[in-house]
């Protein structure tokens, strides 16, 4: 059974270039030797996730809600095991499939086929698994003979189709989706929506970060509201979304951007 457990997780980003540089620190050390004036050195950090505790279990379809900069994407990257917490504990049980960009490691000079293998390996598939998926990927992306050509010859739409098909060809256990997984033209977008729904059905846990209330209500059975890296509400999507809008009404300076979602 897949599960994710977070206990008092803190994520702090050090900001380099703001704190005194090595040469300045050295110089100050040297200066204080003569003048007895103690040079102070401060570490500049941004706290993105603050004291966060959460348990996700099999069957959870979680929507992350919050304004821009609330920590949604950072939290997804914590679930993906990319950012290790600077405080607290995290336990991830199960294979995590993060879909933050459609085609990690895409090489413009390689052919479509070569890219399918490269990206597939990055996404954690074995060669044999990729071989098995290949006909399906070729069919769904509608690229046909173009797969034998370098990717740089593709149109933007074709590139999007290839990336999207690849990214969604995985067999996920814990599926992490960041919004804005592009899918190209309208006819493809419709099929893409079905494909994502299918992908979600195959997964054990879904975490979806989105600005779209509609999407979260449709796909999730649980929603989490984030604000400045803190957990504000956790519950049924309808209630959490209502809470979010109530809070927004109190803070008019926070504007919501309604991105056009594909998934």
């Amino acid at each position, binding site marked *: 059974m897949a599960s994710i457990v977070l206990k008092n997780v803190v994520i702090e980003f*050090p900001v380099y270039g703001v704190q005194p540089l090595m040469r300045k620190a050295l110089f100050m050390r040297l200066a204080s030797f003569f003048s007895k004036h103690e040079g102070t050195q401060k570490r500049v950090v941004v706290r993105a996730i603050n004291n966060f505790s959460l348990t996700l279990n099999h069957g959870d379809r979680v929507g992350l809600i919050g304004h821009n900069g609330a920590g949604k994407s950072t939290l997804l990257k914590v679930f993906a095991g990319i950012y290790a917490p600077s405080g607290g504990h995290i336990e991830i049980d199960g294979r995590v499939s993060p879909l933050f960009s459609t085609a990690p490691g895409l090489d413009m000079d390689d052919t479509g086929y070569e890219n399918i293998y490269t990206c597939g390996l990055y996404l954690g598939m074995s060669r044999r698994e990729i071989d098995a998926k290949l006909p399906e990927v070729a069919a769904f992306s509608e690229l046909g003979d173009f797969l034998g050509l370098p990717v740089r010859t593709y149109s933007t739409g074709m590139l999007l189709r290839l990336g999207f098909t690849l990214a969604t060809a995985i067999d996920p256990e814990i599926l992490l989706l960041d919004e804005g997984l592009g899918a190209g033209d309208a006819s493809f977008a419709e099929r893409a929506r079905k494909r994502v729904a299918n992908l979600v059905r195959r997964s054990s846990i879904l975490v979806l970060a989105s600005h779209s209330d509609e999407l979260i209500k449709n796909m999730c059975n649980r929603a989490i509201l984030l604000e400045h890296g803190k957990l504000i509400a956790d519950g049924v999507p309808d209630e959490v979304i209502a809470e979010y809008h109530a809070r927004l009404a109190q803070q008019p300076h926070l504007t919501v951007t309604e991105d056009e979602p594909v998934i």
Partner: protein
Amino acid sequence: MTPQFDEAFRDIAGASNFPMWGRLGWQDVRRRYRRTSIGPFWTTLSLAIFVGILGLMWSNLWKVDPKQYLPYLTSGMLTWVLFSTMVTEGCTTLISAEALIKQLRISYTVLACATVWRNLVVFAHNLVIFVVVCLYAGLWPTWFTLFLIPGVVVLCANGVWIALLLGLVCARYRDIQQVVTSVLQVSMFVTPIFWSPAQLTGRAIILADFNPLYHYIEIVRDPLLGRPPSAMSWLVVILMTVIGWSITLFMFGRFRRRIPYWL
């Protein structure tokens, strides 16, 4: 402390993922072949010109037989190029993979192995020069030539820890890269590559005996020249391998989790 080192070991176990780093490294080589007729052989060609001209000039200056000097210089230079590019590219192993590291959970060891593998493939290209020089000098392989295989393998095993350690340090302190480049530049002249340690007199012998770079070169150069392996060189290199990996394991275990924050 322990879970961190657990993670570090799991990361290093990524070295067994040959399909992945094999493909990554190979992809880089392919990139060099792209739209050029001889690809990486351009490096080979410039190296050949360098070795050819300097070899003939110095053998004349020092009054040695070019048939003796050229194989020595070529084998030393080839090994040096392999080693030094592994080190300089090791510095950027993690920095250049920033996009991947921030999107996927990827084993850093796989990236280090890819760097080493890529340079090994280039080394294989460069070996052509040595073959030509041997034909000219009438040098034939002996049974000792078989030591080339363990020599190269051990050198590459060192390349991996160097790439990991330097990749880690350079990700945090970007200045180190410049320091490494400068040190390597001088080392090429200080290490017996252009000249033989037999030419050293008095205390200068420490440039060979106490110079680990010399021993790294020797374990590959000796078999190339068909000379019996030197016990001293193997001892030093094995010692360096153990010490290097120990330091890397310690640093890697301690700081591995910070890498995504540094990039």
